[in-house]
Structures are given as C-alpha cells and as structure tokens.
C-alpha cells in the first residue's frame, strides 16, 4: 500500500475530531459527577428540548491548517448539577467550555496538532443554536433532567491530517517535577 493510501481522508479526519469532541464532553461532565448519554438529534434537539432556555459557552481555536469554534450549550440542570460549588452560573458555563476545549486541545496535541484558544463567550437564550455555513448537527446528550449539545464548527486545510495518537498528560493527573 502506498503512503498516500495510508493517509486518512479529509472526511475521516473530521469524523475523528467529532469523535474526540464527543468523548471529551462525556468525560468532562463525568468528572463533575454528571452522566451524559449520547443520543441522536431526533431524541434531543436544541429546537425541541423541553427546557428551552439554554446557556452556552463559545470558545474559538486555531492552529496550522485548522481553525474553528466549539459551542457548548446546556439546559440549566446539568450545569447546576456539575457545578462543584454554589457559584455563578455564568462563570461555570464559561469554565466548562474552557475545560471542554482544553480536553479537545490536549487530544489534538496527542495527535501532533497544536491549537490556540480564545477566551470563552457566554450566551443565554431560548433554543440557542449556531447558524453555520453548512449543515452542522450537534453532538446531542441527555442527562437526568436536561440536555447538553456540542457543535464543532471546523475548517481544515485540504491536506490537514491528524497524526497517530501518542501519550499526553491525563486530566486530573498530578505530575510533580
């Protein structure tokens, strides 16, 4: 097999990124004691969610051959349930978005891709959803009494590929020098 045949296609790279984001979101909420169940859009959609008010944190990112934004939106209950202290809802959705993108960033790093991220922007509104340039279904999750959605709006150079995975510092791990 030639080297070109071994190289993942653009579509395969995007699918891998989406998979990384799904795992990152589930494990992030798990770390804060909230179990997320991945569902298809028909089961949980921002347009039809029973709790219409969504809180959203948006973090942009960019690096060589890749740029985009990660949008985390959730109904109030999963945000309150995951908050480790009795603090500001606004600050917590910003921090969750930041930590979600941090996880995606660290997974990209393990694949040899370094990106820089922006400060989170926080929104609150009914049935919040991005207006992407092309069709962009969310990664949808259900929790006990709420919904969580993640959109990864992404542009990559045609020749952008993720390298093979390598070891990275795991979230929560303490490394002493």
């Amino acid at each position, binding site marked *: 097999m030639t080297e070109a045949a071994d190289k993942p296609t653009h579509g395969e790279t995007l699918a891998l990124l989406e998979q990384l984001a799904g795992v990152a979101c589930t494990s992030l909420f798990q770390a804060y004691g909230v179990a997320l169940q991945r569902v298809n859009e028909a089961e949980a959609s921002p347009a039809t969610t029973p709790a219409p008010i969504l809180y959203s944190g948006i973090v942009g990112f960019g690096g060589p051959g890749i740029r985009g934004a990660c949008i985390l939106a959730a109904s109030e209950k999963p945000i309150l349930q995951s908050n*480790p*202290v009795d603090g500001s809802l606004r600050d917590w959705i910003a921090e969750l978005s930041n930590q979600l*993108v941090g996880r995606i960033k660290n997974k990209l790093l393990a694949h040899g891709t370094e990106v820089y991220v922006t400060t989170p922007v926080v929104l609150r509104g009914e049935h919040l959803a991005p207006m992407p340039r092309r069709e962009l279904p969310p990664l949808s999750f259900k929790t006990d009494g709420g919904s969580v959605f993640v959109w990864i709006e992404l542009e990559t150079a045609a020749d952008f590929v993720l390298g093979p995975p390598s070891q990275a510092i795991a979230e929560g791990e*303490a*490394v*002493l*020098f």
Partner: protein
Amino acid sequence: MKKVLVVDDSPTIRQQVSQTLAQSGFEVIEAADGIEGAEKIASDADIGIVILDVNMPRMNGLEMLEKVREGGRHRDLPVIMLTTEGQQSLIERAKLAGAKGWIVKPFKAELLVSAVRKLITT
C-alpha cells in the same frame, strides 16, 4: 502552617480549590490574575505554596511565575500549575521557571491535597 495562594481568573475554580484545601486544614487566600498574585506574594511572607492557573487576563500564570522568580527572589516558594493546558512546551517553560508540579483540570481533590502537603514550606 503557611498559607496557600490560589491564583485563577475563574471564581468557581478558586472557590472549589479553596474549599478543597480548607477542608484539609489549609489556610487559603486568593488572587484573580497574575498581577494580583504577584502583589500578594510580594506583600505576604506567610505564603507557603502557590496554585497557579496559566490562562488569565492581564498577566498569565507563566508570566507571573517568571516575574516572582526575577533576580532569584522567592526561589524556594513552591508553585503548582493547575490548568487546562497540556502542551509540553508550556510544561518545560514552567519547569524552567521553577514550578514544582503540573495538574490538568479538572483536578482530583486527593491528588491536589497530597501535592500541597508534600510541597508546602513551613
């Protein structure tokens, strides 16, 4: 025992770290960015360890660490970085500036407490 200084721009994270350490008997003070953190270190000789975020407005954690170490000052003050970042280049920069540890958020309470117990100066 000396105090723990927690430097993070997120009030939620500051509160979470402070509560975790206070429950284990540590006295904790807080700062919201690198400038405030450096000022507290300069004015309070009872700080025995710093828990320091990387990405913060005004002055980030690595800049703060390098600033407080300028001219060999506070070179024995232990610093643990607590951040979403996992880039090797940032970890190397922190080590070079004398950081003693690196934790990627979200932190595990028992590991944070154990690291602070091990490193805090008396």
